[in-house]
């Protein structure tokens, strides 16, 4: 039996108890004193859990503890200070990263490692030959589809920070081979020369001009600063000039380099250390008047933005840009050259948008991570997966949406409910998913999936899969598909070898109610 032998005086016991009780109630006191907004986890760039409410239903009562706990985890008192204290201890005391999302490099430089980004960058997680071939096939099919409609295209790729600043990475990070992007680029034939630009060499050259207060890339962030962006802009414009000879980049003399008034791209805020962890950077401030006007996004597309040229001549091209975060610093430079620019932050190719907007050129502007986060999945109207599915005879999984059988199983905060002849999936946020019923992948055959899903908005669906070699969920084993508001018929070929049969569905980046009307898996081929 545990005993409380007298090893302290009553005075010290009282002090200890008072400190302990005060510590237990300190967060609640903080919640009473500071407003909720002061403690919100939005600096982590995610949607916080909603305030739990109680409805007079059994489901609401049964799920209340989970919802209360989710909310409490996001808003309990002193949370921000505690995370800041932990981050400080990790970063400065233990020289470690407080989150697996980034690595702490030499001199405190940040390198992004979400989804095992570093393994991809250093060539430790290469694409297989089949995957490279699938990418080349996809890019070719997409180019043919665009050419048939008289639309030009340009792929502009930005290297990862590691490939520009390998000397700042942790000692153990050694470049073993080409990144996934470099693998695909090496496989493209010379006919692609006018349609692809990889700005790595320019960034390496730009790095030579670095000074402690003017790096080309953000030391605490994962993107280029204005100076690096301007260099990339010049290279992209040079390629665009081949398509539109009237286009030429602005001279650098149109800009003045000045110390940045804000910190820009930095993980410090996400570490709750924005007052402590600082970086010196410069921005390029235009000296000549700007003409691009931001018009806001499309009404039904929260991930869109439009720019229009004020006082355009009328012969400037209109371009549609599918992009990732690398576009943010390029946008102010690029938008000055086009009558209209529609910026779409998504990694897949929205052919409906291309057809309805009819751009002169589609610019794909992505970082190395593009080949880590996406699979070579084509819209079925470009690559006819539907025909393959229809032709497949072996049924691997047949789902009954009326009864939700075999069941879709909600993960995290998602809810699943069969109702009104369909199975409804309710997701509070982007991290909520449902497990699909497991299936047995037949050896040597390709499984094809058909999903009929009603989406409340324009968003991306992700189907994640596992392999026997990697039985875990990772973004690099995910297939994205764009969803439109209303009913979507999704067809996907699960052509990755070694599938173990586990599938996870994220209906959309945005939380909401999604309705599944059909789900079937078939296999074909030998």
């Amino acid at each position: 039996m545990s005993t409380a032998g007298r090893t302290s005086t009553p005075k010290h016991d009282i002090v200890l108890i008072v400190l302990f009780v005060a510590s237990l109630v300190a967060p609640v006191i903080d919640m009473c004193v500071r407003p909720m907004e002061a403690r919100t986890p939005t600096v982590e760039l995610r949607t916080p859990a909603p305030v739990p409410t109680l409805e007079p239903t059994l489901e609401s009562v049964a799920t209340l503890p989970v919802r209360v706990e989710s909310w409490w985890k996001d808003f309990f008192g002193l949370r921000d200070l505690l995370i800041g204290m932990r981050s400080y201890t990790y970063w400065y005391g233990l020289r470690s990263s407080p989150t697996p999302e980034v690595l702490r490099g030499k001199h405190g430089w940040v390198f992004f490692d979400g989804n095992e980004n570093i393994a991809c960058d250093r060539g430790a997680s290469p694409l297989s030959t089949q995957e490279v071939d699938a990418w080349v096939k996809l890019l070719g099919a997409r180019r043919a589809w665009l050419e048939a409609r008289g639309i030009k295209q340009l792929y502009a790729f930005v290297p990862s920070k590691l490939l520009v600043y390998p000397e700042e990475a942790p000692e153990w990070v050694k470049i073993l081979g080409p990144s996934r992007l470099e693998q695909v680029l090496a496989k493209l034939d010379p006919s692609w020369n006018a349609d692809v630009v990889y700005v790595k060499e320019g960034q390496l050259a730009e790095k030579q001009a670095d000074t402690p207060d003017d790096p080309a890339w953000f030391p605490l962030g994962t993107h280029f600063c204005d100076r690096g962006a301007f260099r990339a802009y010049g290279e992209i414009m040079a390629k665009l000039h081949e398509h539109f000879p009237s286009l030429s980049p602005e001279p650098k003399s149109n800009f003045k380099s000045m110390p940045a008034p804000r910190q820009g791209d930095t993980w410090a805020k996400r570490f709750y250390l924005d007052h402590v962890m600082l970086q010196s950077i410069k921005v390029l401030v235009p000296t000549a008047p700007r003409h691009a006007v931001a018009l806001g996004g499309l009404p039904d597309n929260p991930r869109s933005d439009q720019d229009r040229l004020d006082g355009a001549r009328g012969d400037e091209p209109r371009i549609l840009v599918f992009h990732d975060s690398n576009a943010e610093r390029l946008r102010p430079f690029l938008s000055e050259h086009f009558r209209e620019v529609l910026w779409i932050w998504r990694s897949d190719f929205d052919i409906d948008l291309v057809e309805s907007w009819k751009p002169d050129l589609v610019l794909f502007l992505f970082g190395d991570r593009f080949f880590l986060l996406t699979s070579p999945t084509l819209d079925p109207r470009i690559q006819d997966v539907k025909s393959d599915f229809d032709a497949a005879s072996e049924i691997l999984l047949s789902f009954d949406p009326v009864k939700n059988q075999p069941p879709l199983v909600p993960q995290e905060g998602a809810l699943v409910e069969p109702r009104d002849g369909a199975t409804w999936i309710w997701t509070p946020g982007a991290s909520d998913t449902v497990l699909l019923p497991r299936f047995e992948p037949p050896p040597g055959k390709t499984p094809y999936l058909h999903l009929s899903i009603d989406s409340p908005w324009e968003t991306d669906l992700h189907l994640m899969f596992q392999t026997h070699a990697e039985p875990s969920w990772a973004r690099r084993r995910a297939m994205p598909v764009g969803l439109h508001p209303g009913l979507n018929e999704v067809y996907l070929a699960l052509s990755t070898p070694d599938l173990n049969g586990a599938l996870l569905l994220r209906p959309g980046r945005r939380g909401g109610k999604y309705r599944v009307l059909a789900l079937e898996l078939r296999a074909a081929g030998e």
Partner: protein
Amino acid sequence: MLFSSPIFLFLFLPLVLAGNFALPTRWRNAWLLGASLLFYGWGEPIFALFMLLSIGANWVFGLSVQRLRDRPSRAKAVVALAVVFNLGLLGYFKYADFVWEQLGLALHALGVIDGPLPRAGILLGDSEFVTTNLITQAGAIRLPIGISFFTFHALSYVIDIYRRDSDAQQNPVGFALYLSLFPQLIAGPILRYKDIAPQLSTRKVTLDGFAYGVRRFVVGLGKKCLIANVCFVPVDRIFALGAGELTTELAWIGITCYCLHLFYDFSGYSDMAIGLGHMVGFRFRENFDMPFVSRSITEFWRRWHISLSTWFRDYLYISLGGNRVAAWRASFNLILTFTLCGLWHGASWNFLIFGFLHGVLLVLERRPAFARVLEWPVLPHLYVLGVLVVSWVLFNCRDLAHAGWFLGALGGAGEFSSVLHPIGRHMQPVHWCALVAGVFFALPYASRLAAWRDGVIASSARSPRAQALQVARTAALFLLFWFSAAELAGSTFNPFVYFRF
């Protein structure tokens, strides 16, 4: 709910403590019972009803056994019924899937059926209630959290009454509290009714008892948050590596971190449970006593999860005849007891082999020749550590095949090249710090230091040195609490790269 969660630490615990002290003594059992049921049903409310069923049935069993004490055969029958009921529930929830799967494999091997049997949970039907509450997506039966612990509490209760070690609890609230008392509900230590019975009716929270509870709780929280959880980060990644990726050095780092994770996770939980018990007036058995200093597996089980090994000794091994039978039968009893002890940890061949291995080693250690070897210097420690490494590889691997190649990697058959998975990829400085701290505090030095400090305080509590030591200890505990709380907050820290990406 878990002790190491912000909602427990900063909401549940202060409310429970406040209620416990604000209410009159006679209401405290009811208050703690309500809190315990809320604690248990927090994640899965359906299983709180299951807990109430177990409470009701075992309370009736206890009263019946007491009433039939003068008619031993009938009392024995009720005990048998209670054993069947409790082990039946445990067997159903914990082992039915495994047994069913093995049955399917055997029938398949014999050519009786073409393929594997469907998962056992499918037999319950496909109603919404079943699919949402009782089975997993894969059709497996869902396991009520802590069932292995409260089943053993219930068995100890009925058997103690039968053995006249204690009387049945007449008050259903008192009995329900014994079975569901939240500090020990989901991870022990395993209670004996005879130990707790007097405390259910009379217990006192003293100043030094509460302070002791605070100290144990904070130390346990620190063990869990600052060592166990941090050590688990590389474990998770290293054990997920494929056969062609695992290097020998990574395998050793992985298993060392896993040993430390297991010890600090479990002993940290026990410390927190014991500390919480003290805060509300209960005294629980110690569960760990520096197991890594053991010189034999026999000694290890006297130091590791003590409440489990003594439970098996008192309620199974002794019931089978213990040592008072022929030597071969005693050996058989020992192996059987430890095989079942292994199976208690989980339903898989890995655990069965783990238990069997330990049972066999315990039998061997009784041999005079082996016992003499165990008196040598150094070697016995290496022997124990070697056995533990093998055992815990079995514990953490997915299946025997995984365990097989992991053990191969430990033995030097790992991937030769470490370029794909250099150590730095899995071990940041923070993980090395946790590993070093874990090793240090698992050795006797820290407890010797604590014993010296306690000796100084006990001999002259008001001397300047004793005062300084007490201040230092309080300050250290205060820091330990807040660093642990920061780690807890860190577990809720989930930064995304891009909001819109």
